[in-house]
């Protein structure tokens, strides 16, 4: 008759050493995605949460920025739904005929250029982000061969900053062009929304530029590779979603007035 023999575990479970914990920038190469095992007495699951290797902090911050962007999305959704409503609400004048004062704001053509610039900046930012995780450079840096990551990423981040500023200037020009046509914030419900949307989005971009500059500074200053990766990564995701928000808002302003 068949019998199943379950071998009792002969070797004792490897003891944890309190001193060998890894704060993310430790002995473990930052590109390493293994968590433990391998009999190397270094099972990362034996660590308390928050101490489990290079990418954990990164993932946490990434998720944080995503939730922030989600709630920001609701902010824009609220404004857009107000846009739809006030677009079609009217009132009755004394003679009981329906008046809707909404007259579409003409979109200054420069906005198309700005949009292209923003898309371009997103591309440069993505390149910078990718550079931060470029495995060979990461290994070089981890082995102590200078800061190739920083060197590789800085120009791209800087380019993004420049493009972002160009975009903002472009938006400002668009505003002045409208002002020349005597379309002001107060002129009309649709102009309310044009200035409101572009303005709010512009403020978001200014914040984005600040975070990019912070990331640049971090690239110079910070010694921890992981910190630099986090800064650039979060700034990048924020920047991308601002670009996507702009694409939606721009389509709204162009086609849905």
């Amino acid at each position, binding site marked *: 008759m068949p019998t199943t023999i379950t071998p009792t575990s002969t070797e004792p479970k490897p003891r944890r050493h309190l001193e060998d914990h890894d704060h993310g920038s430790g002995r473990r190469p930052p590109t390493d995605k293994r968590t433990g095992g391998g009999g190397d007495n270094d099972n990362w699951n034996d660590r308390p949460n928050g101490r489990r290797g290079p990418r954990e902090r990164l993932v946490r911050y990434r998720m944080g920025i995503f939730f922030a962007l989600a709630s920001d999305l609701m902010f824009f959704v609220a404004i857009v739904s107000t846009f739809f409503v006030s677009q079609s609400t009217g009132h009755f004048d*004394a*003679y009981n005929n329906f008046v809707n004062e909404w007259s579409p704001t003409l979109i200054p053509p420069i906005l198309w250029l700005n949009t292209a610039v923003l898309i371009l900046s997103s591309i440069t930012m993505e390149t910078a982000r990718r550079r931060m995780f470029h495995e060979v450079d990461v290994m070089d840096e981890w082995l102590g061969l200078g800061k190739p990551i920083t060197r590789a990423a800085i120009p791209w981040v800087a380019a993004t900053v420049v493009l972002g500023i160009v975009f903002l200037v472009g938006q400002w020009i668009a505003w002045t062009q409208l002002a020349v046509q005597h379309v002001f914030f107060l002129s009309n419900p649709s102009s309310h929304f044009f200035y409101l949307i572009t303005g709010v989005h512009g403020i978001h971009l200014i914040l984005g530029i600040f975070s990019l500059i912070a990331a640049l500074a971090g690239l110079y200053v910070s010694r921890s590779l992981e910190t630099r990766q986090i800064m650039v990564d979060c700034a990048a995701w924020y920047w991308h979603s601002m670009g996507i928000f702009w694409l939606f808002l721009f389509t709204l302003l162009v086609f849905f007035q």
Partner: protein
Amino acid sequence: MIPFSIQPGTFALSLATWGLPFDASVHGPAVDRHLLLNLWIILGLAALAHLILLVGLIARRRAEATSWRVEYLPLAALALLFAFLTVRAERLWAAARYTGADPAALQVQVVGEQFAWYFRYPGADYTFGITRPQLVDAGAGNPLGIDPADGHGTDDIVTSELVLPADRQVDLRINSLDVIHGFSVPEMRLKQNAVPGMTIHVHFTPKVPGTYAILCTQVCGLGHYRMNANLRVLPPNEFAAWLAAKQKAVQR
């Protein structure tokens, strides 16, 4: 000391109908029946739940319940109960609000402003005159800004108390000059916010002649508490006399 003094008689009386005020409208009794049904049901449910809680706390310890039936059967029962109440309420709601007033209904405009109610009757030509906010001047006796240039407006009757004939449907067009007010007549089981920029129609039929309270139920400023008026429901003939008198006054 007794912190409050209540005549026991009136208190018991008001408890019997849960303190609901007198009901003077045609659609009211149905609403009251449904409301009282609801109140008795939730009173029963609350009592039952507390009874179960107490018994469960007092009784001797026993092994914990594992069958999910204890969860799902009562839940299903409650769901059915709520569905029943919803359907019943929706039918009343539909009867009250889905359809417009019948064309023969008496047309009255209700206008709320800080902090008074004004009521406008279309007058002999059965047509409301044009109003302009620029012309509003309560001091000059034109609180609604009726345009004198418009012929329809000249015979409009504006009063500060709502006078209605009994047993005739009335179609109120409610709006507001300044901020959101709440037009509420408890004895008619009637409530509708007066929203500036919107004309909202509600229709009902007063039944019992008498004088009833009209309240503002949406906070509208420091005079919110005293923004009220009287609703006088008259027998049809007295109402006709009142209207005729008012019209004569306006013509002059």
